[in-house]
C-alpha cells in the first residue's frame, strides 16, 4: 500500500534544544498508524513538525508525494491535514456551533456529516449553543474531534485523545475512530494507552529520544510481549 505521508531524516530544534534526530517513518494510505513511545520521546514534536507549528530544521516531509515541510501551517492544513492537539485547543469563548463553523473552512457545514458526528457525540448537539469553555474535558475532546471531522481530510493527526478521559468517553472516541477508519481515512495517532493503540492501529512506529526505533505492524508488536517490553518498557499484562 502506498504511503500518504512520509518523513525522511526530519530534524527539529526548539530554541537550542535538538528534539528530533532524523525521524523516518511512513503512514500508509487508508490505514491508522500509531506513534508510540515513552513521555518525552518526541511524538508530539513530530506531529507539530508535520503541521508546521515547529519548523523542521532539515529532512523531508511529503504528503501524497509533495513536500510540505517548507509550507506554512495554514497551507499544510489546506493540503488536507486535520489536527487534534493534545490540549484539545477548543476556542472556549466561542460556542460549539461557532467552533465548528470555523473548522468548516470551505463554507457551510454539511448537515449529513454533522448528523453523523452527532451520532457519536450526542452532547455536541445538546450543547450546540453553549460556550465551549463550559464543556467538560470529555466534551471538549469530542468537540476537538468533531472539528477535525466536519470536513473530509486526507490525513488526521491526533495527539493523545484519550489522555485523562473517563472510560465511557474513550469508548465513544474509539467507536468514532473505527468508523472514520472504515470510511477510508488515513490517521496518524499518538497514544499512550497501549490497549487503545492495539484496538485501532494497523501499523506502528515507536519513538525514543527523538528517533524512530521501530516500525512495523501493530499485530506484530501486540503479539510480541518481549518487543513491547524492549521498545516501550511495558507489557499488556502490566498495562491494563
Amino acid at each position, binding site marked *: 500500500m502506498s504511503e500518504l505521508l512520509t518523513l525522511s531524516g526530519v530534524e527539529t530544534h526548539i530554541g537550542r534544544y535538538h528534539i528530533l534526530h532524523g525521524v523516518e517513518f511512513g503512514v500508509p494510505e487508508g490505514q491508522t498508524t500509531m506513534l508510540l513511545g515513552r513521555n518525552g520521546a518526541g511524538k508530539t514534536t513530530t506531529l507539530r513538525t508535520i*503541521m508546521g*507549528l515547529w519548523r523542521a530544521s532539515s529532512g523531508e516531509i511529503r504528503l501524497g508525494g509533495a513536500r510540505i515541510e517548507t509550507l*506554512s*501551517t*495554514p497551507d499544510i*492544513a*489546506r493540503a488536507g491535514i486535520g*489536527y487534534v*492537539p493534545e490540549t484539545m*485547543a477548543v*476556542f*472556549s*469563548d*466561542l460556542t460549539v456551533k*461557532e467552533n465548528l*463553523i*470555523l*473548522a468548516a*473552512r470551505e463554507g457551510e457545514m454539511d448537515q449529513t456529516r454533522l448528523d453523523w458526528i452527532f*451520532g*457519536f*457525540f*450526542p*452532547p455536541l448537539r*445538546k*450543547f450546540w449553543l*453553549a*460556550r465551549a469553555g*463550559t*464543556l*467538560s474535558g*470529555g*466534551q471538549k475532546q*469530542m468537540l476537538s474531534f468533531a*472539528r477535525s471531522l466536519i470536513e473530509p481530510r486526507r490525513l488526521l493527526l491526533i495527539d493523545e485523545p484519550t489522555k485523562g478521559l*473517563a*472510560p*465511557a*468517553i474513550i*469508548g*465513544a472516541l474509539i*467507536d*468514532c475512530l473505527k468508523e472514520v477508519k472504515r470510511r477510508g481515512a488515513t490517521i496518524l495517532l499518538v497514544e499512550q494507552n497501549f490497549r487503545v493503540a492495539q484496538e485501532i492501529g494497523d501499523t506502528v512506529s515507536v519513538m525514543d529520544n527523538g528517533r524512530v526505533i521501530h516500525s512495523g505492524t501493530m499485530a506484530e508488536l501486540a503479539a510480541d510481549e518481549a518487543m513491547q517490553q524492549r521498545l516501550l518498557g511495558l507489557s499488556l499484562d502490566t498495562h491494563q
Partner: protein
Amino acid sequence: MSAQDMDVGAALPKTPRDFVPLLLPIALALVALPFIPSTSTRITLTIAGLAMGMMIFVMASGLTLIFGLMDVLNFGHGAFIAVGAYVATLVLIPLAAWMQADSVWLNLAAVVPAVLFAMAVTGALGLAFERVVIMPVYGQHLKQILITMGGMIVAEQILYAFFGPQQIPLPLPASLRGSFQFGEAAIEKYRVVCVVVGLMVYFAMLAILNRTKIGLLIRAGVENTEMVEALGYRITRLFVGVFMAGSALAGLGGVMWALYREQVNASMGSELLVLVFIVVIIGGLGSVTGCFIGALLVALATNYAGFLVPKLALVTDIMLMVVILLWRPRGLYPVTSR
C-alpha cells in the same frame, strides 16, 4: 460502548452571565451624584463623562484588539491618534468656509471627508508600521515596548518638525456649536455627537465580532492563534487587517478629541496614550466590552472627581485601575489567556 451510553450529556451548569462590570458605571454615578448640588450640573457632568468615555473608547478599542489578538504591546498607538488629528486638520483648513457656514450639509461635506481621510491615512500608516516595525519583534515583548515607544517618539518629532510646537486651532463646525437646553441643564451638541459615534463604533464592533466569520476568527485568534492557523486560516492577514482597523479607529478618536478640544498639538498622542492603556488594562486584554466599560468608568470618575475634589481628578484613573485590578487582577472581562 456507544456514545449514547455516556454520562456526559447531563445539562451543563448555566453559564454565569457576568453583569457586575456593566453595572459599575451606573453604580459610580449613583455614588457620586448625591454629592453634586444641582440636577443641571449632574446632567452636564454625566453627559460630559459619557462623551469623554466614548472618545477614549474609540481610541482604545483598536489597541485592545491588537493587544488581545496579536499579543503586541503597541506603545506607538498614540502616534495614530495624533496623526489622525493632524490629517483631519490639514483637510479642514482649506474647507474653513464650509465649516463656519450655517448649513449642516456644508459642515458635513467638510467633516465627513476629513474623518474618512484621517482614518484612511492612519490605517495605511498602521499597515506600514505593522510590516516594518512590529513584524520583526512578534513574540518579544521587551523589544516591542522599546521599538514601538521609539516609533511613537519619532512620529511625534516628525509632527513637531512639520507643524511646530504650537497648538493649531481646529474650530468645531458651526452646526455642532452650542448646546441643547433641558430645563436648566445645558448639553453641548458635540458631546451628544460623540456619544452617538462611540455607541455606533461599539455596536458595529460587537456585530462584526459576533455575527461574521471574520469576527469569529478574531475572537478565536485572541484565544489561540496557533489553532486558528492549524485550521487553515492565514492569521497574519488577519493581524494586518486588525492592526489597520485599530490604527484607523485611533485616527478617528484623534479627530474626535481634537474637535472636542478645538485644537491639535504634536504631543496629544503621547498624552492620551497613558489613558488609553489604563482603559485597556481595566477592561481586560482583548475585550471590546471591557474596554467600553473601562472607558466610561475612567471618564465618569474623572469628571465627577474634577467637580467634587479637583485635586483628586489628577489621579482618579490610576486609583480606579488599582481598585479594579485588586478586585479582578486580569481586568473586567479578560478574554485572552496570555
